[in-house]
């Protein structure tokens, strides 16, 4: 059985999102199948500028085939097209124009898939919203499995995606909410699929004490890990946290881990540590009271799973259906939909260590049951087995 994993970017430098998801899954599926990654030469997800060398490469023992991006993305013209298709009445051609701008525009990758389709048993496409997935599924619908990694954003309502969601042979969803959203949108319930998600790589040893000592942190803190961006709900988090500090006498600190594209308010209890290596990140999680996840749009939230893997409770933005659903299913976190709820939920979690422990334990159980690597691998294999039986 030979599987091709098709993804927009691939490399050790890429530390999050669907690309890391794809890399981890590929590395684990390598145990039971012959795998190969088909991707572009891009590293930067804004411009898709060619960075890696064209042709064959080996990443962590996985064969990778890279194809050139023929046209880099111009953020300004892309923004204009996107606003047009989201706000105005438009035709299908306009959506294809948007898809081409969205990129990574690599016709050579699609040509390769078409030409060498017989060399592979299945093509597993990651991220529905990019050029490679749409035209890749279009090229080999009878051999394609789609991992949509879809968030509830307006792009998913484009007409072209309704068609896309009816074409693959199977789906691998990240969450029940994602599955329902795609089913409702395209009435594709007849296509087999399963909610799988992704596991995580936890270091053998981690401790919060080292983290606190290294970064000179005293007292209790809550932690946010990820890109510090308005789209991730960070502005709202800052406003809520500062108001929480004003209205209560709490001495809690907010530790931020990740690169920022947002101005962080200057406050003695908001500590921005920048981008940290993996082991440091896990030490930080271990030392924290809880992980706060303020994002409005998430397809899965790998960092939430990492917190649960460590037995840490989560305080999530309830306006994100996936995070809310995950908290309710796992009983591993509380959520908020406005400031008052944020204040109450955070105060409750801070003041009740027993509750933190119990919720964290639930999260850990949920993680072990659903996101251990063996479970993930088995789910992928069982989907492939179902497709084989249908042949």
């Amino acid at each position, binding site marked *: 059985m030979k599987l091709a994993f098709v993804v927009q970017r691939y490399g050790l430098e890429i530390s999050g999102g669907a690309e890391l998801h794809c890399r981890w899954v590929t590395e684990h599926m390598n145990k039971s199948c012959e795998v190969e990654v088909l991707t572009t030469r891009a590293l930067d997800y804004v411009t898709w500028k060619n960075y890696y060398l064209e042709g064959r490469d080996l990443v962590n023992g996985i064969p990778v085939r890279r194809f050139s991006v023929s046209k880099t993305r111009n953020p300004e013209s892309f923004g204009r097209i996107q606003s047009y298709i989201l706000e105005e009445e438009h035709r299908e051609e306009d959506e294809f124009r948007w898809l081409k701008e969205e990129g990574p525009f690599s016709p050579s990758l699609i040509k390769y898939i078409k030409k060498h389709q017989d060399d592979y048993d299945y093509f597993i496409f990651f991220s529905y919203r990019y050029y490679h997935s749409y035209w890749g599924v279009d090229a080999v619908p009878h051999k394609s499995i789609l991992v949509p990694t879809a968030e509830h954003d307006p792009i998913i309502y484009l007409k072209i995606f309704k068609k896309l969601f009816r074409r693959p042979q199977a789906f691998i969803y990240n969450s029940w909410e994602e599955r329902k959203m795609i089913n409702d949108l395209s009435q594709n319930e007849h296509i087999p699929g399963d909610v799988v998600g992704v596991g995580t790589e936890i270091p053998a040893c981690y401790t919060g004490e080292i983290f606190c000592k290294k970064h000179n942190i005293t007292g209790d803190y809550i932690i946010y890990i990820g890109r510090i961006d308005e789209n991730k709900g960070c502005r709202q988090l800052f406003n809520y946290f500062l*108001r929480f500090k004003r209205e209560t006498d709490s001495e809690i600190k907010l530790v931020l881990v990740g690169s920022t594209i947002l101005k962080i308010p200057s406050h003695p209890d908001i500590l921005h540590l920048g981008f940290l290596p993996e082991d440091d990140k896990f030490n930080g999680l271990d030392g924290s009271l809880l992980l706060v996840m303020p994002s409005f749009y998430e397809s899965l939230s790998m960092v939430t799973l990492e917190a649960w893997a460590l037995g840490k409770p989560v305080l999530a933005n309830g306006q994100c259906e996936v995070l809310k659903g995950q908290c309710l299913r796992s009983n591993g976190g*509380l959520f908020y939909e*406005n400031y008052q*709820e944020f204040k109450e939920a955070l105060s*409750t979690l801070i*003041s*009740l260590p027993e*509750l933190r422990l*119990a*919720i964290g334990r639930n999260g850990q159980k949920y993680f072990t049951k659903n996101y251990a690597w063996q479970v993930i691998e088995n789910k992928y294999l069982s989907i492939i087995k179902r497709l084989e039986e249908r042949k």
Partner: protein
Amino acid sequence: MDKKDIKRENSIKVDYDNIDVADIMDQIKRKVERKQEKPSKEESLEEFPLVPPSNFQKDSGIEDAEGTGKKKRIKMILLKFMKPFAPFIKLLVLPVHEEIMETAQNLHKTNMRLDSLSYEFRRTMEHFKEYTKLLHSLYHNLVVELTKLKIEEESLRNKTRIIEKDFESLGRREKALEKLILK
């Protein structure tokens, strides 16, 4: 466990053996709703009190500056010098102080109003969402019905055409029979 913790535990009931996040969130939401109802009742009954809200704090930066070495000593000397004038200064400062307190109170209330407005806004948006879904399904049903009607129209048209042809051939037959009879 301190007093605050006991109070918190009293307000949110948790079954530690069987944690139910949905239940905890319901309790939190109910608590928030109760809190939001309270100030709106008070608002209509009483004027703004001239006392600062309990959570109103001095700027921590000023506090830090006051607390440090030399500045502290200078402050002590100045305070001694100013002591005889204290009642006069207090009298001068009183209106400003009252105005600041009133502004702080107003800001606090505005904040609360904004929160309740944003809550209302979200509820309205939810209604709109439901309404849009209904419109969507209505639109879908209309399209289905129109398609059915179109098909029916087509078949009726075909039937009419057949009947017209039958009618024509009957006409021709009638004429032929007439000719035969007249012969």
